[in-house]
């Protein structure tokens, strides 16, 4: 299992692995927002938490079609399915590798990009924390979407459409934590909901992902 994680991380970091894709997209979105809505600091401060969350979510979505599709194309997914590792573990490791190469860099970049959006001072802690808690759910749900569309050529469009509605609750509660944090409001309820969503998806989604993967590999 650690071998699979190390392999995936190594593949992501080597040439053509797509490590910087999500991060670059996140950077572009947040840099462009002041140009599109105008540079008024007050406006930017209001929308900053929501924009950062939306940017992170779309950056995550962008890299999902790599999670399983590459292994499917070169045949190693078939070999992994016959290896002495349960498929549930394979998809969990895939989700973890996706989070480490996509989600974690976004979490670390968010406070830096918050400066560009004039994020209010108390917001920095909460945008980082809410993304740290929320992005694992995005990776796990995304892996489920990738497992659903694994056999399809150019399945990216379908993948986005399938995953989008599942991302909505995470986005609502994640952005709400960041918004309330930025404006000194009580944020316990959305924070607990967000944590609950993440823990729930981590616990349940691997079984769903492995089940659909088995069907798709037939």
């Amino acid at each position, binding site marked *: 299992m650690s071998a699979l994680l190390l392999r995936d991380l*190594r593949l992501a970091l080597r*040439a053509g692995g797509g490590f910087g894709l999500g991060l670059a997209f996140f950077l572009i979105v947040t840099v462009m927002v002041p140009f599109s809505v105008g540079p008024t600091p007050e406006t930017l401060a209001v929308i900053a938490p929501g924009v950062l969350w939306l940017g992170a979510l779309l950056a995550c979505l962008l890299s999902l079609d790599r999670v399983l599709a590459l292994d499917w194309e*070169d*045949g190693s997914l078939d070999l*992994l399915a016959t290896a002495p590792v349960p498929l549930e573990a394979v998809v969990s490791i895939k989700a973890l590798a996706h989070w480490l190469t996509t989600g974690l860099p976004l979490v670390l970049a968010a406070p830096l990009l918050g400066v560009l959006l004039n994020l209010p001072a108390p917001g920095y802690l909460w945008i980082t924390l809410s993304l740290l808690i929320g992005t694992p759910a995005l990776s796990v749900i995304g892996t489920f979407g990738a497992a659903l569309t694994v056999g399809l050529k150019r399945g990216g469009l379908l993948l986005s459409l399938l995953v989008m509605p599942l991302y909505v609750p995470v986005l609502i509660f994640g952005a709400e934590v960041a918004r309330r944090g930025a404006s000194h409001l009580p944020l316990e309820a959305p924070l607990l909901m967000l944590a609950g969503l993440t823990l729930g998806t981590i616990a349940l989604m691997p079984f769903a992902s492995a089940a659909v993967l088995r069907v798709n590999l*037939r």
Partner: protein
Amino acid sequence: MIEARDLGVSRGGLPVLTGLSFTLGAGEALILRGPNGSGKTTLLRTLAGLQPPLHGELICDLDEIAYGAHADGLKPTLTVAENLQFWAKVFGVVTITPALAALDLQALRDRPAGGLSAGQKRRLSLARLMVTGRRVWVLDEPTVSLDGTSVALFAAMVQGHLNSGGAAIMATHIDLGVAGRVLDLAPFRATSAAYVADEGGFL
């Protein structure tokens, strides 16, 4: 090690083979023959546990089977040794040296797999079987794009595996020189083209 009784397999809901019975014991090789589309790959995928049989009985221990697919399953940006090391770790085998030696890959050890020729990739993909440590090799067209010398290396590897109590079942059109029974799939072709709903659902 494998016993099939009245086995039927389907591809995409259409039955392709039916009424197939065979056994495979330790030290034996079974060579599947049949025209394109006769169900060789489907049968091998069923044996590997990637899909359930349509009907009949298949007695085999999935933890004994190493599946060698038609695709190479290599990562182009990893080196030859890294590709092999990964599978060795997954299957809990300590060393990759015998596998590299068996298919004459030592000289290519540190080359990225993406830069290999088709035949070299194939050899690396076959070397993976050695690091699975499993006793039954299920191979789909193992000699595609191999030259004469490499085919001989591969035949020697299979023979060594059989001599050490392993077994192999493979679909191939060339004569490997490995003593084994030949199973022609043509007589077992499913005649009814009736669509069979994929039962078993998600599990």
